[in-house]
């Protein structure tokens, strides 16, 4: 039983770490503010849930698990809200997604 729990934790923690890393690479490599926001917020949420559930599996049923569950709920609530507020602020300030440079060899039907 403990072995299955350990395997589950390994999968969750490594998967979560992978997602988090993908988000980090995305925030560096992607060309525009909005695409970066996309990378950051989606991978944040997924990585957070996986890592924290992975730790919860290890902690069993205890006060620590309850605190981890509380952290997960708060991050799930506040992450998308912060992204919404940021995207809204950027739009209101006049930064539109169309402003990004298209590569010249992109076919017509793929252009924004």
């Amino acid at each position: 039983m403990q072995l299955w729990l350990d395997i589950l934790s390994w999968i969750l923690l490594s998967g979560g770490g992978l997602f988090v890393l993908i988000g980090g690479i995305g925030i560096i490599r992607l060309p525009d503010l909005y695409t970066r926001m996309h990378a950051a917020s989606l991978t944040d949420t997924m990585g957070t849930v996986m890592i924290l559930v992975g730790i919860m599996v290890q902690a069993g049923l205890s006060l620590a698990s309850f605190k981890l569950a509380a952290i997960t709920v708060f991050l799930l609530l506040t992450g998308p809200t912060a992204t919404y507020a940021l995207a809204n602020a950027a739009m209101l300030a006049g930064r539109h997604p169309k402003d990004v440079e298209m590569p010249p060899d992109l076919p017509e039907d793929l252009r924004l």
Partner: protein
Amino acid sequence: MGMYYVAAVAIFLTMILALARALLGPLVYDRVLAVNMFGTKTVLLLSVVAFLYGRPDFLDLALAYALINFIGVLAVLQFFQNRRGEALNSNIDTTPPDGH
């Protein structure tokens, strides 16, 4: 035990990348995004390291920080928008939304 190290290393690397975006990002909004991401990663790192060190009562820090991070991001957006709003309304030579 080893799984915590894997997660911690991944989170560290992401923190480095987020810091790079905060230093580079041409717009202020890029930097706000990077700081927000840095904050969430810090919460994760604190949780993982708390378990790594076998001290689950350190989770209070992660919880506190998860709440405070949100407030910080909203405050930045609030004050930045206010500033832009005043400049736009009163014909002052407005600073561009870029932050160099």
